[in-house]
C-alpha cells in the first residue's frame, strides 16, 4: 500500500499494553483518513453509551492521506471521541507536525483505551511505545509541555500533542494543542485529562512512500504557486479576522451574547486594526504554503506582552460577543485559552452567558469571588478585567469558573435548577456546543446546517453560511432548496476534513470554490499518492461517507430528531438593528427545513438512516447496528 502503512496502533493505558491492528486496503478506501477515519475508529472501539469521561471512551487519532508529502495543506490530522460537551461525536482537526511525525513512525492512526492510574505521557518512538511519567509536566502550559518533552528526549524533531491546565482539570471544552495549533472543539482535552494523559509525543524517522512521486511533486508545485495568488490573499494578509467588519456590515457579528448583530466598536477589533497595531509574525501549519496564522501581541496596558495567533472565531467570541472593544484584552483572553488549552469559542460564549446572567441580576458580585478579587467583581459586558479573570478562573476551575467549565448548556441547567431561573434562554449552544461567529437568524440555510450538525454548532462542519452570504440563496427566507443546499455544503466540507486538506486551499485548483474545479485535481493527488484510480464521484462520496459515520455514531448514542435544535434566542428574539434586523428562525421554518434536509440526505422523516443507504455506502456492519 502506498500512502498508508496499513497499521493502527492500540494503546491500553489501564493495562499498559499495546497491540497492532492491520486494516485492509478496502477499509482505507471507505474511511480515507482525518475525521472520517477517526470517527470510524471511535465507532469500532467505544463502549456504547459510556460516560465521555470514563475509560470506555477512547482517544482516536487518524492521519491523513497526504501527511508527510509535499501536498500543500495536507499536514492535518483528525481526533475523535464521544464529546463530554455534547454526548455525541466529538471530532476535531488540527494542522501540525505531530501527524507527520506519527505517519513517519509508521502508523495510520492510534486508539488509546482505558485510563492511567498516574499522569503519563505516551511516547511513540517509531514502533516502540513507552509510558513515561508526566508528574513534572503537570501545571505546564501547552507550549512548555512540548518544549519540556523535546528537552527530555534531547531531540527537537519530537512532536507532541498536549493538554494544558484546563485539560488536566477536565474543563469540558478543554482542547488538544500541537505546535501552537489546536484540535479545538468538543472537549478532547477533558477526555485526555480523564485518562491522565498529559501528552502524546512522537518521533518518526521513516520516509513516506508514495506511488508516483514525480507526478505528485508536479501537481503540488502548481498548487503551491497558485496559493500565493489572489485566491488566498484574504488569509495571507489579514487572516480570518478580516471577517469582523464583513460580519458587522451584514448585521451578523455576535454581540453581547448574541443580543445584537452589530457592534459599535467593530473597527477596534477588526482584522485591519489587528494587522496595523498588533501583528508581529505570520506563521503556517505543517506543509502549508499559505500561512494564515497572524501572531499578534498586546502592546499597551495591563496585558502587554500577551501574544497568540488570532483567528476570527476566537476573536468574535471574546470581543464583540462579550462587548469588549479593546484588542489588548481580547489577545490576553485568547492567550490564556491557547496556553491553558481550551476552546476560545466555547470559553468566550460561556463567559458572555455569565455576563448576561450578571446583567440580568441573577449572578451578583458575590458569585465572582476569587483569589484575585476576594470581594468579587462586576461581570458586565465590556469589562476587560471580567473577561480575562473569568478565562483564568475557568482554566483553573476556581470559584464560578468551576460552573462555567461545564459550558453553557450544563451550566445554565444547573443554575436554573438551583435558582428556579430561565438562563437557558440565553445559553447559546446547539447540542451543548457553543455557537460560532455568524448569527444564524439571518442565515437560514446555515441555521438548518447548524441545527442538524453532528457535533453541534460548528461552522467548520456545515459550510452553509457560504451560499447564504454569497447570495446563491436568499439568506433571509426559507424555500424548498435548503435541504439540498445544506446537505451539499456539509458534504463538501467533509471531503476536505476527511483527506484532510485545509479548506483555505479550496480556490487554488481552478479559482472557484466548487466541486467541479477541485474534485478532479484532488483525485489526481490521491491517485499519485496511493496508486488508486479514483475519479470525481469517489471524491464526492468521501464527504457523504464521513458525515454518515458520524451521524450513525450519534444515532447509536441515542440521538433523536429533537436533538437537532437551535438556541432559544435564535428562535424567539429577532435581531433588532443592522442589515439583518427583524429576522429570526421560527419553529415552523426550522422543522420544515429539517424535513427537507433529512429527505435530501435520503433518511427517514425521523432522521434515521435506511439500511440500504448504509449498505450502498459500503458500511454493512453499521447498517446492521443502526440501519432502519
Amino acid at each position, binding site marked *: 500500500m502506498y500512502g498508508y502503512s496499513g497499521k493502527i496502533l492500540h494503546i491500553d493505558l489501564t493495562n499498559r499494553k499495546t497491540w497492532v491492528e492491520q486494516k485492509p486496503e478496502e477499509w482505507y478506501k471507505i474511511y480515507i483518513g482525518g475525521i472520517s477515519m477517526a470517527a470510524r475508529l471511535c465507532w469500532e472501539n467505544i463502549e456504547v453509551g459510556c460516560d465521555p469521561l470514563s475509560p470506555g471512551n477512547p482517544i482516536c487519532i487518524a492521519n491523513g492521506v497526504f501527511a508527510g508529502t*509535499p501536498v500543500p495543506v495536507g499536514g492535518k490530522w483528525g481526533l475523535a471521541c464521544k464529546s463530554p460537551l455534547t454526548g455525541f461525536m466529538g471530532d476535531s482537526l488540527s494542522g501540525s507536525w505531530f501527524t507527520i511525525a506519527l505517519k513517519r513512525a509508521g502508523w495510520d492512526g492510534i486508539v488509546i483505551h482505558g485510563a492511567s492510574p498516574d499522569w503519563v505521557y505516551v511516547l511513540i518512538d517509531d514502533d516502540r511505545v513507552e509510558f513515561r511519567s508526566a508528574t513534572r509536566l503537570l501545571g505546564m502550559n501547552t507550549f512548555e509541555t512540548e518544549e519540556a518533552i523535546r528537552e527530555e528526549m534531547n531531540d527537537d*524533531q519530537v512532536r507532541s500533542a498536549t493538554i494544558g491546565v484546563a485539560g488536566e482539570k477536565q474543563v469540558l471544552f478543554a482542547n488538544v494543542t500541537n505546535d501552537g495549533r489546536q484540535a479545538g472543539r468538543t472537549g478532547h482535552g477533558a477526555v485526555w485529562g480523564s485518562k491522565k494523559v498529559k501528552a502524546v509525543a512522537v518521533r518518526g524517522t521513516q520516509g*513516506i512512500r508514495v506511488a508516483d512521486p514525480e507526478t505528485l511533486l508536479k501537481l503540488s508545485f502548481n498548487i*503551491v504557486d497558485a496559493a500565493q495568488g489572489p485566491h488566498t490573499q484574504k488569509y495571507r494578509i489579514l487572516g480570518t479576522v478580516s471577517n469582523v467588519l464583513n460580519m458587522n456590515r451584514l448585521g451578523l457579528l455576535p454581540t453581547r451574547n448574541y443580543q445584537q448583530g452589530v457592534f459599535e466598536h467593530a473597527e477596534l477589533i477588526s482584522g485591519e486594526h489587528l494587522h496595523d497595531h498588533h501583528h508581529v509574525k505570520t*506563521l*503556517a501549519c505543517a506543509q502549508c*504554503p499559505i500561512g494564515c496564522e497572524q501572531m499578534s501581541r498586546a502592546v499597551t496596558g495591563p496585558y502587554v506582552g500577551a501574544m497568540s495567533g488570532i483567528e476570527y472565531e476566537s476573536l468574535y467570541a471574546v470581543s464583540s460577543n462579550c462587548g469588549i472593544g479593546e484588542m489588548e484584552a481580547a489577545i490576553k483572553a485568547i492567550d490564556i485559552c491557547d496556553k491553558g488549552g481550551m476552546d476560545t469559542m466555547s470559553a468566550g460564549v460561556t463567559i458572555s452567558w455569565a455576563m448576561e446572567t450578571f446583567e440580568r441580576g441573577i449572578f451578583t458580585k458575590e458569585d465572582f469571588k476569587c483569589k484575585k478579587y476576594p470581594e468579587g467583581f462586576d461581570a458586565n459586558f465590556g469589562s476587560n478585567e471580567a473577561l480575562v479573570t473569568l478565562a483564568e478562573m475557568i482554566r483553573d476551575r476556581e470559584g464560578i469558573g468551576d460552573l462555567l467549565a461545564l459550558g453553557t448548556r450544563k451550566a445554565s441547567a444547573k443554575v436554573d435548577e438551583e435558582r428556579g431561573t430561565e438562563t437557558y434562554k440565553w445559553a447559546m449552544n446547539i447540542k451543548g456546543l457553543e455557537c460560532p461567529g455568524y448569527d444564524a437568524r439571518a442565515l437560514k440555510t446555515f441555521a438548518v446546517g447548524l441545527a442538524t450538525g453532528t457535533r453541534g454548532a460548528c461552522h467548520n462542519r456545515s459550510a452553509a453560511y457560504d451560499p447564504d452570504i454569497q447570495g446563491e440563496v436568499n439568506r433571509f427566507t426559507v424555500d424548498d432548496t435548503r435541504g439540498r443546499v445544506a446537505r451539499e455544503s456539509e458534504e463538501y466540507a467533509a471531503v476536505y476534513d476527511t483527506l484532510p486538506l485545509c479548506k483555505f486551499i479550496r480556490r487554488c485548483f481552478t479559482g472557484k470554490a466548487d466541486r467541479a474545479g477541485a474534485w478532479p485535481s484532488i483525485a489526481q493527488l490521491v491517485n499519485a499518492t496511493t496508486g488508486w484510480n479514483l475519479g470525481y464521484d469517489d471524491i464526492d462520496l468521501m464527504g457523504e461517507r464521513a458525515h454518515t459515520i458520524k451521524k450513525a455514531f450519534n444515532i447509536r448514542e441515542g440521538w433523536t430528531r429533537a436533538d437537532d435544535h437551535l438556541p432559544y434566542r435564535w428562535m424567539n428574539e429577532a435581531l433588532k438593528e443592522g442589515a439583518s434586523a427583524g429576522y429570526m428562525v421560527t419553529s415552523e421554518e426550522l422543522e420544515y427545513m429539517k424535513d427537507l434536509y433529512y429527505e435530501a440526505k435520503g433518511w427517514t422523516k425521523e432522521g434515521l438512516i435506511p439500511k440500504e443507504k448504509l449498505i450502498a455506502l459500503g458500511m454493512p456492519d453499521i447498517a446492521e447496528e443502526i440501519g432502519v
Partner: protein
Amino acid sequence: MPTSTSKYRYVTCDATKCVGCQLCEYICSYAKTGEFNTYRSRIRTVRAQEILVTAVTCRTCEDAPCVIACPRDSLTQDALTGIIHIDAGRCDGCTWCIEACDFGAISINPGTKLAEICDQCEDLEEGPQCVKWCPKEALELTTPDQRAQEARRKLAIQEVIGAR
C-alpha cells in the same frame, strides 16, 4: 552569533518571510534520498520560540571549520563554489565535523551512519530545490555581500520614504 565570512554563495533564509511550513525539508529529502522524510533533509527549519522561525543549511564558510576538523580528510571544499564535498569512502561518521559547524548544518545519515551536508543541488540545472519551492521566497542562493547590499538598500528606502 557566528557569521560566515564566505565569498561563496549559500542558501540563506529571510526569517521575516519564513512561515515555518517545512516544504523546503520535504523537497530536500526527496531530492537527496528519493523519499519524503524531513529527518533526512539537509536544510533544517528551526522554531526557536513561538514566533521565531527560520531555515538553516550550510553557509560555505571560507576555510571551513568542518573541513579542518575532519581527522580523515574526507571533507573537501570546492575552490570555485565553496560547496563541501564528503568522501563517503573515507568518512567514518565520527561527527567531528558536526561539532565544528557553527550552523548545525551537517547531519548523520541514520542508514549509512555517514555525514551529509547541503550541496546546493549542484547536480541539477535549476539549482537548489528548496529555493525553487519556498512559497514565501524566503530562501535565496546568495552571498554575504549581496545580503549586505540588500540590507543597505532596504535601509535607504526606509529612511527616505518611511516604507517598511
